């Protein structure tokens, strides 16, 4: 037996060899991704032809034949291109709504301070995260409110009816994103609670809010809520819309987070308990960091919806970005053929920047948080 030589048993050690053919480079990539099979080649050709037809049209409208200089009259005689002059002329209204021009520095300051706090907060390498978070989540809202609303420190009071445009859209988006997330986490934890009262409350709360369209929520808070309030008391309309959007998306967020909590192997909960960590500590250090990581795509999907749905506040008379653009166009001085399309293109552009950066950020975080573990158990 021992003398038998089997052909498949190696008698000498095999050295590693380079792979046959090319596996890197542009040509290889094109071959592999665009022309790997007949159907793939067909698709590439069809999509290519479609782009060949579409891109020149887009280019001509947005840039080639567009009006970048001149006035309403220049736009009026041009039916082939976008009327960017319109955006340039009304950019202040599109950005600030009816906010008094002399006070533009206030929203500007809030914007730049907010940006200066957010960027280091979301950038994982930057130190002093706790201080940074405290500044952004605790100090900044007070600062922003005092500055935007005025009425104290000698600042002119600017009622929220005058706020508008991109400023409102950003405000709704940031407050919605920052507010709905903790609400969602708490609701998700509550829904999995062993205490029946908390669990029932959370289930009812989540299901009720999710069962109602956002437009209905906004109508309710703007039209019906005042009917239930004692006479003479009013809650600011913008505040009501803010709370409505935040809670509405909090309920959606709760179910996304619950998905993550359920995906976590039971052993993680047990190991945390066995070490003596109490409920809140094991949630904070063990469960949530992992559960939230699993559902980053879902969380970001919900946040992107939220950002886009802020434009629904226009139906209750708040001048968000989209509403401001539409109103700006209804000015008879700008009765030009392409100003509406131009306005919408501009709105698309702004929303795209907001949503696409959220999406990119989520990919960055997913890569950053990948610790190379395959999910065990």
């Amino acid at each position: 037996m021992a003398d038998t030589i089997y052909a498949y048993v190696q008698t000498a050690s095999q050295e590693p060899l380079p792979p046959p053919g090319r596996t890197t480079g542009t040509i290889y990539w094109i071959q592999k991704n665009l022309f790997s099979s007949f159907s793939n080649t067909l698709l590439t050709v069809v999509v290519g032809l479609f782009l060949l037809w579409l891109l020149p049209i887009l280019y001509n409208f947005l840039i080639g034949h567009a009006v970048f200089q001149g006035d309403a009259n220049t736009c009026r005689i041009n039916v082939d291109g976008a009327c960017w002059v319109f955006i340039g002329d009304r950019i202040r209204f599109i950005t600030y709504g009816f906010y008094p021009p002399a006070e533009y520095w206030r929203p500007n300051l809030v914007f730049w301070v907010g940006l200066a706090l957010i960027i280091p907060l979301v950038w994982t390498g930057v130190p002093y995260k706790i201080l940074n978070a405290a500044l952004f989540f605790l100090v900044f809202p007070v600062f922003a409110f005092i500055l935007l609303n005025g009425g104290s420190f000698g600042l002119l009071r600017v009622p929220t009816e005058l706020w508008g445009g991109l400023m409102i859209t950003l405000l709704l988006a940031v407050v919605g994103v920052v507010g709905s997330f903790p609400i969602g986490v708490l609701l998700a934890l509550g829904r999995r609670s062993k205490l029946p009262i908390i669990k029932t409350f959370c289930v009812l709360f989540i299901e009720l809010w999710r069962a109602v369209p956002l437009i209905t929520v906004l109508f309710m808070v703007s039209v019906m809520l005042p009917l239930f309030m004692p006479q003479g008391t009013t809650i600011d309309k913008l505040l009501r819309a803010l709370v409505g959007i935040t809670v509405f998306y909090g309920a959606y967020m709760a179910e996304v987070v619950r998905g993550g909590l359920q995906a976590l192997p039971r052993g993680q909960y047990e190991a945390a308990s066995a070490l003596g960590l109490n409920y809140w500590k094991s949630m904070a250090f063990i469960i949530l960091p992992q559960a939230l990581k699993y559902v980053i795509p879902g969380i970001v999907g919900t946040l992107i919806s939220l950002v886009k749905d802020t434009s629904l506040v226009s139906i209750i008379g708040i001048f968000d970005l989209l509403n401001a653009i539409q109103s700006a166009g209804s000015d008879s001085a700008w009765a030009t053929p392409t100003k509406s399309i131009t306005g919408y293109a501009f709105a698309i552009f702004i929303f795209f920047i907001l949503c696409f950066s959220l999406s990119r950020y989520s990919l960055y975080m997913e890569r950053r948080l990948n610790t190379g573990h395959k999910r065990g158990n």
Partner: protein
Amino acid sequence: MSIEPVVDTVDRTNMRISKSEVAIDIVAMHKWYSDFHVLRDINLRVMKGERIVIAGPSGSGKSTLIRCINRLEEHQKGKIIVDDIELTNDLKKIDEVRREVGMVFQHFNLFPHLTILQNLTLAPIWVRGIPKAEAEETAMKYLHRVKIPEQAAKFPGQLSGGQQQRVAIARSLCMNPKIMLFDEPTSALDPEMVKEVLEVMISLAEEGMTMICVTHEMGFARQVANRVIFMDQGQIIEQNEPEAFFSSPQHERTKLFLSQILH
């Protein structure tokens, strides 16, 4: 599976079983999973310094029993007293017990989002309130003991199964527990990694740790345990010193079990 010795010699100088100090006392304990009576009238007293191996066929309730000791499972009848604290619904008491009882799981259950060092220091810092620097020093000491200090900065997913299980043991030890529970610690390991984990467990026993191990490693049971307990259908049906347990099992079920796993 065999009952071959795991190591050449076991140093028994520090293995002392207390005559008076009770570590765990289980009295007339029952547990049900809804209608299923999974543990039936369990009575077990574990003295300080004892090394007990629980054996038995799959589904006999051995894992459930040791999971009741740190209240990962709730019992419905009878008493469990651990380190003089009776386990009731009182969450404070439960956390007190869990601080003193370490547990090692079949699937390691390391925290994959934390480094090895963070896995080891988390509970000492946040449960015991030990300063970070001191907790890290202790952690490194135990990583040396389980012979993988060089892995401290890695994540669990980058380690082999045997290394992960040794980290899991070190993680429990960092809490300085009085009792260690092992729930099939080698069952999920590749065969060549079983020994490195058993060696760590033996060295723990040599230091006089009170241990309860659910395991099929009969070689470990024979070399280390002072008592082997055999469970079937939710009951303890036999217990004996290892030599007697293996050489002359009393119960028919025990004989069958041993003949099936030893060959």
